[in-house]
């Protein structure tokens, strides 16, 4: 393990007894006694903050925030490499860093203090929503000390490439805001003049107010409403129906008729500028809000793509040592050293060293594989036990991982874009309004003449203008998306909710989704007459202390939880290739190795059996298993209760998958699925939901009707999925589907309201009773009813 930081404060942490106190740094529960911190990370950051005079951090409104990982002294000099700075700091003096673990007001305070404690930094500010800090240099300054300071304070900084897409989004938001501002100002002023006119203004002032109404309406019609014209034109050209088309129809007719009526004697009152302006304002406003929520969700996934790729240690002949280099600069033929705990940066062949690797994220296979010189390894696999030197054979797009990612992009491109609910309704709606309009015109033409006919028809179009219809779906979804985000479920787009509501089958990955994804000790069996139990446990812990193998981690955490004190460091810890480790403690040979029947690991129900030997005799047996998550069983029941059939789709071996399926009562469980097989299943089933985490799920997530990426998953999955969960567990899937169905219910309720209002308005207009005053009252009434009905939101999320 890494070197512990030396400080004057106690570096003790919890041993698993009942919690009574709070960690001094993050506030999470800590067992009573000497311990003051919950983990080495918290105690290290506490020490750093006190050493640097920043204990004011705790005075600010600090929320519970555990540091991402134990802060290690890291080498950040690559940040100031000119080639790197050209990519990541195009402005020259400013760079963005994504900070792991930045989450509260106190973090904002802390980041802003960096310039005071690090020379050469002009300013540092934190964008809380994105967890991105912007660091600006003084002339001659460098980024490395700032990044090092952030790492010391407990945030792991990742440099983020400034993305033109993000700049575009910012600019688009600002323009939208300007349009909304103009529409709002004009609407308010128009309403002011309209009230005077409705109250019966006469004489010269009537003409002045009418003229002013037109003038103030022009910015709305020509500038603020421009996005509607553009999208309606785009849809019409593509031959598709969109809700914007009837909106533009109503706007255009209302404007034309209003302008005309100003000059027709006797019809001065028939102008609808105030209603139309309010319509534009409400529509722009609701769309802006929906877009902001959506952007927030997408931003999280995109940030991951823009972060620096991890570093790789490449052999550099001139320096005669391994140097840190960003992984995307590797080329075939380079020799890299991959230490235990690191991930292989590219496909390659082992040149030196032995180890065990886990390809769980790539294939879903939970068992580690042994490798020795001559074996090939894949990019993305995790190196567990020993350092190896690898000669690279395939980088980036050529590697297996790269090809999987390409599959993801292709699957995403193949998916037909879903049309929004409102757009589907738009067609029938427009037809109905046009028919009613033609009938109205015809009737009044033969009854009273051209002018009444025109005006009553225009009144009909204005009052049925689908403001409420266009808002009903987006606003309801907006509320749901926001509430789901608070529950830790991030949905990237409103259409996903529609698809979730109609889904009928849920494909669940096993490793990491239904199970914890790591091995845990199920039971210990000590042989009678063997050595003292605690001595055995201490010995096992001492031997396995430095391995990152899942078995080692499971054993050490279980033994630590039992409160066994550590043994002195064993001499000669050696690996039994492919089976386990051995070590000498006080000159007695202890071995911890996998139990095998004729070279094949013994399987009981998918559990791994490990034996402990002391001086050649078996003194204990341990059974380890990947435990089911606590919420898996209730989640599966919940899914079934909602009519969604759960199916297991896993890349892991048959016995493990069967064991889980049996416990959860799932009839359909498919094991040993390759990424291609998962993709095929997802593409075939058009109403399914797919839940997964590893790279082997990414392509299927992109292709599925709704793809849900689980917490802790690979970046590729988070990018490819429509939904990602920021908290571990499957229970959120049930919450999500229920919320989606309730939201669709709310939307249907909203549509019912809209229909009633539109019908009432249409009747008034057709019978000639509709006046601009009536329209000015009816339209906001319908809009606010919809808004209130949507704001209450899904009952299950309240």
């Amino acid at each position, binding site marked *: 393990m890494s070197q512990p930081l030396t400080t004057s404060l106690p570096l003790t942490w919890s041993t698993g007894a009942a919690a009574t106190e709070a960690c001094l740094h993050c506030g999470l529960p800590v067992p009573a006694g000497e311990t003051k911190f919950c983990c080495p990370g918290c105690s290290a950051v506490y020490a750093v903050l006190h050493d640097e005079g920043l204990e004011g951090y705790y*005075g*600010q*409104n600090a929320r519970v925030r555990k540091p991402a990982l134990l802060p290690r002294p890291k080498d950040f000099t690559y940040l100031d490499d000119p080639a790197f700075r050209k990519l990541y700091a195009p402005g020259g003096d400013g760079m963005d860093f994504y900070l792991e673990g930045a989450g*509260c*007001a*106190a973090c*904002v*305070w802390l980041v802003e203090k960096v310039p005071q404690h690090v020379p050469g930094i002009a300013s540092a*500010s*934190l*964008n*809380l*929503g994105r967890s991105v800090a912007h660091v600006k240099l003084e002339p001659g300054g460098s980024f490395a000390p700032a990044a090092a300071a952030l790492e010391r304070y407990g945030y792991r900084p990742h440099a983020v490439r400034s993305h033109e897409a993000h700049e575009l989004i*910012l600019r688009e*938001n*600002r323009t939208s*805001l*300007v349009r909304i*501002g*103009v529409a709002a*100002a004009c609407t308010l*002023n128009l309403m002011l003049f309209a009230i005077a006119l409705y109250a019966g203004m006469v004489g010269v*002032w009537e003409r*002045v107010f009418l003229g*002013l109404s037109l003038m103030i309406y022009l910015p709305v019609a020509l500038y603020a409403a421009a996005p509607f014209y553009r999208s309606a034109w785009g849809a019409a050209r593509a031959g598709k129906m969109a809700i914007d088309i009837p909106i533009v129809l109503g706007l255009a007719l209302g404007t034309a008729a209003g302008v005309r009526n100003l000059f027709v004697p006797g019809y001065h009152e028939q102008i609808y500028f105030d209603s139309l302006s309010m319509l534009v304002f409400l529509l722009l406003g609701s769309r802006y809000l929906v877009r*902001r929520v959506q952007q927030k969700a997408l931003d999280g996934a995109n940030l991951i793509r823009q972060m620096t790729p991890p570093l790789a240690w490449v052999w550099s002949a001139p320096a005669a040592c391994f140097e840190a280099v960003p992984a995307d600069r590797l080329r075939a033929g380079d020799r890299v050293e991959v230490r235990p705990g690191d991930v292989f940066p590219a496909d390659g062949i082992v040149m030196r060293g032995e180890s065990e690797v886990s390809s769980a994220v790539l294939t879903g296979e939970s068992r580690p594989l042994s490798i020795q010189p001559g074996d090939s390894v894949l990019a993305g696999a995790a190196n567990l036990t020993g350092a190896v030197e690898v000669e690279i054979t395939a980088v980036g797009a050529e590697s297996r991982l790269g090809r999987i990612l390409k599959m993801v992009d292709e699957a995403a491109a193949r998916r037909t874009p879903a049309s929004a609910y409102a757009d589907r309704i738009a067609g029938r709606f427009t037809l109905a309004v046009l028919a009613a309009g033609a009938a109205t015109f015809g009737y009044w033409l033969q009854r009273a003449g051209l002018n009444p006919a025109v005006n009553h028809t225009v009144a009909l179009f204005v009052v049925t203008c689908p403001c409420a219809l266009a808002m009903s779906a987006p606003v309801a979804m907006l509320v749901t998306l926001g509430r789901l985000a608070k529950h830790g479920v991030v949905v990237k787009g409103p259409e996903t909710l529609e698809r979730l509501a109609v889904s009928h089958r849920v494909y669940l990955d096993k490793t990491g989704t239904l199970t914890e994804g790591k091995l845990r000790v199920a039971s210990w069996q000590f042989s009678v007459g063997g050595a003292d139990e605690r001595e055995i446990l201490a010995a096992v812990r001492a031997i396995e202390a430095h391995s990152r193998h899942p078995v080692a981690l499971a054993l050490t955490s279980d033994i630590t939880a039992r409160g066994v004190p550590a043994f002195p460091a064993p001499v000669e810890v050696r690996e039994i290739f492919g089976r386990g480790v051995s070590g000498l403690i006080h000159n007695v040979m202890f071995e911890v190795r996998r139990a095998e029947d004729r070279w094949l690991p013994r399987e009981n129900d998918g559990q791994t059996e490990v034996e402990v030997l002391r001086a050649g005799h078996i003194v204990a047996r341990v059974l380890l298993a990947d435990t089911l998550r606590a919420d898996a069983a209730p989640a599966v029941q919940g899914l079934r209760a909602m009519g969604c059939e759960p199916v297991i789709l896993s890349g892991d071996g048959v016995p493990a998958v069967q064991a889980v399926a049996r416990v959860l009562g799932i009839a359909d469980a498919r094991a040993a699925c390759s990424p291609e097989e998962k993709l095929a299943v997802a593409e075939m089933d058009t109403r399914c939901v797919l839940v997964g985490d590893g790279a082997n799920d990414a392509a299927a997530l992109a292709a599925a009707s709704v793809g849900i990426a689980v917490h802790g998953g690979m970046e590729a999955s988070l990018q490819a999925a429509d939904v990602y969960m920021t908290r571990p567990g499957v229970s959120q899937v049930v919450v999500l589907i229920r919320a989606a169905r309730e939201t669709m219910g709310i939307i249907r309720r909203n549509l019912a309201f809209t229909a009633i209002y539109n019908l009432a308005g249409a009747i008034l207009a057709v019978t000639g009773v509709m006046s601009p005053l009536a329209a000015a009252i009816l339209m906001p009434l319908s809009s606010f009813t919809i808004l209130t009905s949507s704001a209450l939101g899904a009952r299950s999320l309240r």
Partner: protein
Amino acid sequence: MNVLWFILPLSLLFSMVAVAVFIKAALAGQWDDLDTPASKILIDGEPIRRQGETK
């Protein structure tokens, strides 16, 4: 009613100034980040240190 000849243009002028300020602020990015400013108001300022006082 004559006062309207004066008030009307004045109020329209005010409106336009308000809109102009709003546009300037929006284009300068005042509303890009809606989350951080909400948290920043919770941050306490530095205690004022007077002559001869130690904290």
